């Protein structure tokens, strides 16, 4: 405990002799589209720039069929789809008792996003959507359902939500895992997922506990 007291005492003795005020943070989102379709288009553009893919459901298609179409050749007969979404049965569910090792073989994780951010093309999850946080990184691919009415303009708006104050873990995913650490060459799938696909789907069953 003495380190704590020493550090705080040193800060009190040394901190600058004036007090800078905390600034008000503007929303900076006057220039964003008010129209839902335009905001969605902005989101899609930003997301694609970060390596994500956007797949619109066809009119006569079930959500399950859309997801399978979106995955295309990323699926084969042996693939394991883990679904956290009530509407879509996968090969398995992710349950709280799952350990990281038990999720190692997941090829695709199906998740619902809490909301999206148009400025950056990010989707947000908390532990409520993930059930086991590690699944979002151990799976080879992610397919994410996003309710288009849950797209906010920019990060200022995103941070006005209370998720960060209530959830234990809140994360923005913006495209798949990426690196450019070897001679600046962009490689997707560095450590986490190799691809991220977002499917617009109205949320009819709010996540329990969310």
């Amino acid at each position: 405990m003495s380190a704590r007291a020493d550090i705080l005492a040193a800060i009190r003795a040394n901190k600058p002799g004036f007090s800078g005020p905390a600034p008000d943070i503007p929303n900076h989102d006057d220039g964003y589209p008010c129209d839902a379709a335009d905001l969605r288009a902005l989101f899609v553009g930003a997301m694609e720039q970060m390596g994500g893919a956007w797949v619109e459901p066809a009119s006569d298609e079930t959500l399950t069929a859309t997801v399978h179409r979106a995955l295309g050749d990323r699926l084969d007969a042996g693939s394991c789809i883990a679904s956290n979404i009530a509407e879509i049965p996968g090969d398995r569910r992710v349950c709280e008792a799952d350990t990281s090792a038990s999720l190692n073989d997941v090829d695709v994780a199906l998740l619902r996003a809490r909301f999206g951010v148009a400025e950056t093309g990010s989707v947000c999850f908390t532990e409520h959507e993930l059930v086991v946080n590690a699944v979002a990184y151990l799976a080879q691919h992610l397919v994410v359902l996003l309710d288009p009415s849950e797209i906010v303009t920019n990060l200022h708006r995103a941070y006005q939500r209370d998720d960060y104050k209530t959830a234990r873990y809140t994360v923005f995913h913006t495209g798949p895992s990426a690196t450019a650490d070897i001679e600046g060459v962009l490689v997707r799938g560095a450590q986490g997922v190799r691809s991220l696909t977002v499917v617009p789907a109205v949320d009819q069953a709010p996540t329990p506990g969310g």
Partner: protein
Amino acid sequence: MASDNGANATSEAQPRPAKPGAGKRVDHAAGARQFLAATEHAESHDERVWAMRQRRDAAVETIPEWEELRDLASQIKTHALTHLDEYLEQFEANAKANGIHVHWAADAADHNRIVHEIFQENGVQRVIKSKSMLMEECGFRQYMDAAGFDMIETDLGERIQQLDDEDPSHVVVPAVHKMRSDVSQVFSKTLDSDPGNDDAHYLTEHQRQATRPLILDADAGMTGANFAIAETGGFVVCTNEGNADLSANVPNLHVASIGIEKVVPRVEDMGVFIRMLSRSALGSPITQYTSHFRGPKPGGETHIVLVDNGRSERLGSEKFWSALKCIRCGACMNTCPVFRRSGGLSYGATYTGPLGLILDPSIDARRYSNLPFASTLNGSCTNVCPVKINIHEQIFEWRKVLAEDKQVPWTKRSSLAAAGRVLASPKSYRAALKTAHSALHYLPDWAIYNRLNAWGQVRDLPDVPAEGTFHDWYRKHRLNTAEAGDNE
């Protein structure tokens, strides 16, 4: 954004500047000369680092309120640092209420001992680690290696550096000084990759496959933090690879090392910083992953080690305290002509480039006394800094302080006195730039062609453009929209 993975690989050996022993001065000039002599490495480094700067410029162009964001970021940091004791206490109380264990470390040795103890109490042997410059600053990896722990870096660049037994050379891209032929060599020796294959995709995939089992097997995960939020007791980690999330979420034990200067008051402050961090660093609107940890996962355990290591003392230094605002974006390094041409390893320090020049001497004035001379004082670092640290002015201040302390040889001290008349105030420096047409033509020769500025022997700085200096342009175009100058 990627360069294509073309055929022109090099067989040139990677330059490896000698690291001076304890108590010795770092010879940046010698390291820089050596780096420049490896022409393919030097050119590749210059190009790649400059490309990051250009992507930053392009990203900034898309944000009309950029200068306002810089002001806000600077003000938030000023507010946080002038109330640091209160916000640290608030952060601690909230973190504890969320079930996080909070520890305080006065210095590097304290940090290493505390983490070691946590590991011993939990029977930890294998650790996966996400890049944290603070752990580098504390010599943590070397300490844990000596204590017999398996520490596995999960950031690709950091892993390359670990396997090559070398320090990171850049805060954002730790292995940027290496070419893919160097990585291929390291991986073929350590990870059994095909020595004839230096394709970046192949090498990255090979490393992914090799690291995955180690991640699944780890007993504990370590991360740093980009920000700590007093309001929630949570902390924010930004990565592109997802490695921090693997480190934090896969094992049941998560230890985060956080410098005390990382605390900010409110969640909404994150809007300002996250909008600027990755745009400043790499030119992307955000990192692929931005994670907010506020409590342990079910059945898990989270520890935070709040580290001082000289920060509280630096807070008392009138001229240098604002360097504590640094958010480690690396923008100042990417724009610095000296950094681009000398390579990060030549600095012989954890923090390299302009941010290193203002941080390292406060860690060890004698060892790093040469570093503040590794700058042209062109002010480019200051202009890109998202938290508006007056970097080049602090670099010059360090020269004066070190000269007064007799940490630098008298030849340099006496030429400093001459330069001092011009450089002592930003105003006269700007005036001098204008009348002399070019910084290089005005500054005394020692500042450029001195052998300590090895990069200057090879290249000149560009002339000041015909329309005047940056400040002329800035005053003309931006003064109405953003306040000039910092609030300190």
